[in-house]
Structures are given as C-alpha cells and as structure tokens.
C-alpha cells in the first residue's frame, strides 16, 4: 500500500472516528506521515495535511467537519482544491461517501494484492518516534495494525488499518475499473470543488439561468392570472 493510501486511510479513519479537530491538528501521527517522506508519493503531491487542512480548523474548537476530511482523503488535486472546498455541496455528501468508500475499498484490496502491506512500514507509521508499539495482532485472513498516539492530554487517537488477503486479482482489476470510472465521474459530480474561474463562472451562469428560467416557467403556469393582473395593473382594464 502506498503512502498516500495510508494517508487516505488514516484521514478517513480519523473522520469516521469523529476526532475533535483541535486534537487532530496536534496529533503527532499525522505529522509522522509527513516525516516519513510520503510527500514524494505519486498520489500525494503538494497535499499537506497539517498545513493546509488543519490550519483552517485550528481555531474552530469544533469537531472536524466530516465532509472536509472525506474530501481531503479522496481528492489529490493540489492545494488549490482546498479553497474550493468552501463550495462543497451538502447534498453531494452521499456522492462523496460513495466514491470515498469505493476508493477506500479498492485501494485496500489493490494495495493488498499488488504490494502487500509491509509490517515494517506499518510499524514506521505507527511509531515514528521509535517507541515500542502497544498493540499488534494478526487474525486469520487479515493484517491489522492499531496505531496509538503517544501519551498526551486529550482523547487518544486510535486508527485501525485492515487489508484483506483473500481477494483475487480479477476482482481487484474490476474494482480498479470502477475506481477509474468514479474518478472520471468525480469532476461531473463535484464541479463545485474545482476552483477554476471558468468552471465557477459556468456554474454561476447556470444558476443565473435557473433563477430566471424557473421564474418564467412558474409564471407561465399562472399565465391567465398573470395576464389578468397585468391588464389590471398596466391597462386598468
């Protein structure tokens, strides 16, 4: 599994665990990922969790908004994405969740079947400060790693990575296709995420057209009434 995939998983798990944002921002595990040099990964690019994601949330004192984390774990389009997140559409969250789940699932299987999760790598991730790991177990059919943060005030951050062995390459390749397709669909489902001025302008124009067009449509439904009122108002007839 690549570093970015681990990043994605960790951040996803972070979201699922509903960790408070201010605590998550201070959590050394996330810093550890950066320290490990995952920045060079193909998927990672200029995506920096601490600086870009949590900086905006440091002062909130609120729980990390679920959708923000989901987006950050699923999208790797560089820093410009981050500002565009303001446009995030609430109703698209289900689409996000669906794609994320797909993304997550495919990567787990693909990562497992293609590269296999290396124990040493996991240990590196879970213990960047060379402290002994507290819990590691390997049930039949699964590799699991529980990553515990070092002792600090506040609730502990506990992340679990699970990768299934038994999936074959055929299923993985099919899922990869689905994944690629979902990536293809992503810009269409979530146009608001793109910061491109052209796209934003297009969205704005579409909304303007809707605002005007829907009013015309509505008034057309009441055409006899509108005509009657217009005659009374303007022609005093």
């Amino acid at each position: 599994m690549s570093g970015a995939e681990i990043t994605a998983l960790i951040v996803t798990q972070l979201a699922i665990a509903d960790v408070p944002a201010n605590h998550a921002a201070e959590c050394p595990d996330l810093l550890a990922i950066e320290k490990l040099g995952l920045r060079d990964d193909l998927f990672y690019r200029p995506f920096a969790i601490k600086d870009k994601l949590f900086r905006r949330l440091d002062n909130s004192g609120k729980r990390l908004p679920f959708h923000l984390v989901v987006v950050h774990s699923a999208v790797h389009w560089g820093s410009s994405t981050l500002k565009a997140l303001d446009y995030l559409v609430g109703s698209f969250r289900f689409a996000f969740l669906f794609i994320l789940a797909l993304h997550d699932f495919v990567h787990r299987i693909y990562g497992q079947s293609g590269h296999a999760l290396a124990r040493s790598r996991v240990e590196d991730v879970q213990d960047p400060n060379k402290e002994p790991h507290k819990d590691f177990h390997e049930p039949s059919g699964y590799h699991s790693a529980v990553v515990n943060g070092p002792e600090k005030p506040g609730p502990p951050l506990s992340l679990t990575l699970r990768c299934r062995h038994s999936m074959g390459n055929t299923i993985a390749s099919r899922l990869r296709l689905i994944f690629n397709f979902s990536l293809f669909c992503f810009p269409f489902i979530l146009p608001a995420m793109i910061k491109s001025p052209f796209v934003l302008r297009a969205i704005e124009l579409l909304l303007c057209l809707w605002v005007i067009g829907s009013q015309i449509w509505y008034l057309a439904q009441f055409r006899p009434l509108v005509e009657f009122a217009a005659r009374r108002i303007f022609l005093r007839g």
Partner: protein
Amino acid sequence: MMLLGSLIAAVALVVFSILLAGAGNRALRLLRLEIPSALESLLYSLVLGTIFLELAVSAGELIPNVRVGVIAAACITAVVGITGQFQVLRDLSAVSDRFRALPRVERFLGFALLGILALQGLASFAPVTGSDALHYHFTIQARYLHQGFHADWALLHGFFCALGHQLILAGLAFGSDKLANGLIFLGGVAASLSTFRLARQWTSGAWPFAAALVFALTPVVFWQISAAGAPDIWMCSLLPLGVLAILMAQRAPTLSACILAGVLAGAVAGAKYTGIMMAAALLVAFAVELRSVQKCLVFFASAVAVGVWPYLRNWIWTGDPIFPFFFARRSDLAGNLIALHWLLKDTGASNPHGFMRVVRFPIFAIADTDGLAAWQFLGPLILALAPIVLISLRNTRLWRVVMIVWLMVSLAVGMTSGIPRFLLPVLPLALAASLGAVALFTQERFRLLRAVTVLSVAGFCLLGFAALAVYSRPAWSVALGRISQESYLRIHAPDFERSEFVNSYLASQPVHESSAGALVFFRHLYYLHVPFVAGSPDDSWEVSPDALASNQQWIDYFSRRHIRWVVKAPGYPVELAAPLERLERDGVLKPCSIGTVQSIQGFRINGQFASEPIAIFCVSQ
C-alpha cells in the same frame, strides 16, 4: 362614519395587541425565559398572549350566554396583559432604538415593510368578503353568539373551526367584525416579523427585510392577511417561532424553552388539521436536536395541552376528533353522503397524490391547471432559489431544524391534501432559508448571481405591491369612507344581494314568526341577519336527497327545523330540484316574494355580474 369606525378599530387593535403581548410576556416571565432579542421577545409575547386569549375564549364559549363568556375571557386576558406591560413597553423601546440605529438602506426597507403592513391593516378594516369567511369562518361564530355553542350539522364546514377561530369569535362578541379581521391581520404582522427574525439567523443587513417584504407581498399572504377572513395566517408566525424556540431549547439547559416550543407546536396543531403535521415536524426536529426523552415528553405534553381542544370538541360532537376523516369510514352512516364527499374533496383528502406532484411541493412548484388560482400563487422565488439552498446546506442546527420542518411539512401537505395553499405556513421558513442561503453563498463571489437574485426579489416586490394596490384599492376606499359599505359589499361580497333580499322580507314579517327561519341553499351566509337553516346538499348532513324524497318527508323536515320559508335563488340545487318543484306544484310551497338581484358570476376577480331571479316561498301550515 366608516372612517371613524376604522380609526376606532385601529386604536382598539393597537391597545388589544399591547395587552395580548403583556399577557404573553407574563407567561414568558413565568417560564423564566431570558430572550436576548427584544423583537423575538415581543413576538413570543404576542403569540403567547394570543394563545392565552384563544384558550380563554374556548372556555368562555361553553357558558350558556356565549357573548358574555367570550367577553369575560377577553377581559381576563386584558387584565393579565396589564401586568406584563412594563416589559412589553421596554421591549418596544429597545426595538425602536435598534431600528433607528440601522443603516439607511435597512431603515428604508423597514419603513417599507411597516408601510405595507399598514396598508394591509387598512384593507383588513373593510367588511368581510372572503368566500370561505362568508360561508363558515365568520358565519359559524356568529351563530354561536346567537344560538349558543352547538354542533351545526347543517353546516359541516363548521367542524373545521379551530383555535384561530376564537379570535373571530372574540371580535364578533364585541360586535365588531373589524376587530375580528384586525386580529387576523395581527397574525400577518407577527408572521412577517417572524420571517424577518428567522432570516436573521442566517444573515444580517438588508436580506432579512427582503425576506419579510417578499412574504408580505406574496399574493396569497396579503389576501389572507387582509381579505380572506381566515385565521390560518397565524400559523405562519407559529411555525417559524416554533423553530426559533427549538433552537433556543437546544441552547438553554432548562425545560422552559421546551415548554415554549411545545406550546407553539400545540397552537399550530390546534389551528387546523394540517397543523397536526406541522406540530409533528416540530416534534421530530426537537427530538433530533435535543435527544432527550424527558424534554420530548415535556414538549409533547405542552403541545397536547394547548392544541387538543378543537379535537376534543369534535370528538364529543361527532365521535371523530378529526372530523370527517374517521367519520367517513364508518359503515353505519345515515345522512347526506354527498355532503361528506364534498367535504373530503374540499380538504383535498380525496384528491390524487401522484409522486411527481408530491415532490414538487417542497419547492413550491405547483400550480392549478386553470392558472387562475390566485389563492395558490405563492411566488416563484422558492423554486428559483432552490439550487442555491441545496448548495448552501450545512450540517448546522439551524439548517437541520429548518430543513426537517420544511421538508416534512411540504411533503406531508403534498401527500395528504395536495392543496398548494396549505404550504403557506412553511413559506416563512422557505423564504428565510432561501434568501439567507443566497446572502451567504454570494457574499464573496458570484456577484452576477447576487445581482440576478436581488433583481428577482425587487421585481417580485414591485409586482406584488402593484397587485396589492389593485386588489386592495376598493377595500381601502371603503375603510376610508370614500364608498359606502353597502355598495362595496354589493360588488365584492358574493350572495350579498340575495342575503339582503331575504333579510328585508323576513324582517317585515309579524313578530310572532320571529322564531321561524328560512331554508336557504346559497353558500355565503354571513350577511343573513335573520334565522335561517343552511340547506345546501353539498354541506348539510341533514338535507339528504335520499331522506327528503316525498312531500311528507319535506313537511316533517320543515316542521322539525321550524322552517317557514324556502328561498329559491335562482333555482334549487340539482339534487333537490325535483321534490321541491313538486312541492311548489302541490301547493306546499307558495310564492310570497319574487324579485331580481345582481349576482357575481364565476370568480369575484373577474368582476362579472348578472341579474338573477330570486323567490321566497312560504311553507303552507
């Protein structure tokens, strides 16, 4: 004289409003609720005071002399109101100070809103002309005052009367339909300001004023506020205030805010059958936000305590708390099933509720097929701004509560009645959320979209004002005394000339016949000032074509109901025409007075009249 009457009514209404707010403020103090906003405190006070009056009148109408009981109830409310005056005046002063400190644009919009409400208030002082008001909203209350509190099976729509109708009863008990109309108008004022207050939860500046202006200038709204004579407009203030109370309950650790939210939900439920769905939506939103069984029980108990009375009355009278929905399912019915059918049709219960039609209700994208239904014109802005609302949705308390109530109520209305007008109570929520969403969404970007929205809102307000001016001009004229009340009613009140004809004939009859009444078949009965029995087979449980087929059955019916005259204007109802014409031929009915009256043809808005014959037949003894 009419102008003087309007002035007196205006002063009385202002005094009454302050007293109602005082009574409500007393309740707020009992609950020990601290409300940071003076305007919100005033709105809660006014609404709670009105609920207090409604409940007091509900008790007062039970005594044999209904007028005395209702006046006593109003006086008790006033006395309680006096004790809360200090805080009300302090809140008014705080609101006034705050208003004066606003920027110029907002002050201008505020004055515009007040001006429009004042014009609507003036229009509400015109005599009642709303079709449903003349049919039962006002008629039933007037009959309670004259004949005592009783079940009127000759006017089945009377069972629809609920808590809001107690305001009409209170006004009529003081001998003033202006005061009754004024109390309905007060609901419009509270609704507009509640819209403003709710919109302020999203944004400040001019947008909340715009939301309130759009609300006040929506044709259905200004019709309901000024001319309809129906108290439904109060639901438009109860629902947004209920939402605000739920948000307050979420912040406050005590049960008081839960009681307040429950009382408001109960008042909505008690206002109309569709209000039950609204109260249920408020309960769901409350449960989702507070997640406390104890608080939910407090909310529910408060709601039941306030809203149960009309349903209890119907249960005692008919055996069906939500008459006629369960009543119609009984298999042992022996009465006029045609009336029951029409009653169900009027509620929309028997209308088709297709999926594609229902899903259009939340965005108010519904119109009647003939396109002339002004009473369903809720405006295009909710539909136009729907995508922006969708984009702006956030997982916050405010959005959650508003969306739960908005979606639940609108879908429930679509699925049960299918009548777009019943969406009216959700309009404040939808407008506040839509304009709030636009304000936030276009705060830093999308200037073009903001401009288009502002133009749409401004255009809607201008056209709405023009429509208000055209629609209300005759009402303003009569309220200001520029035209006489009679000439206004002849043009705008359906069946007014028929009523006058019957009034003048029966008034000329000997005194010993004063207890006898006339059987009338026309719909609009409020201006009948003589004893009458409503005989429309569309609305009377007694006048069943099957049960009244023979001459003897009719004679028995006339005798049982003390009917001395039968009014034929211009003909008899189709279902009853054959037996009644046979009574004429057989000499049971003899013509006593024949004349011609002007009658409105079709919708009043068309202004078409025709001369029609009218005849009063005397029943042979």
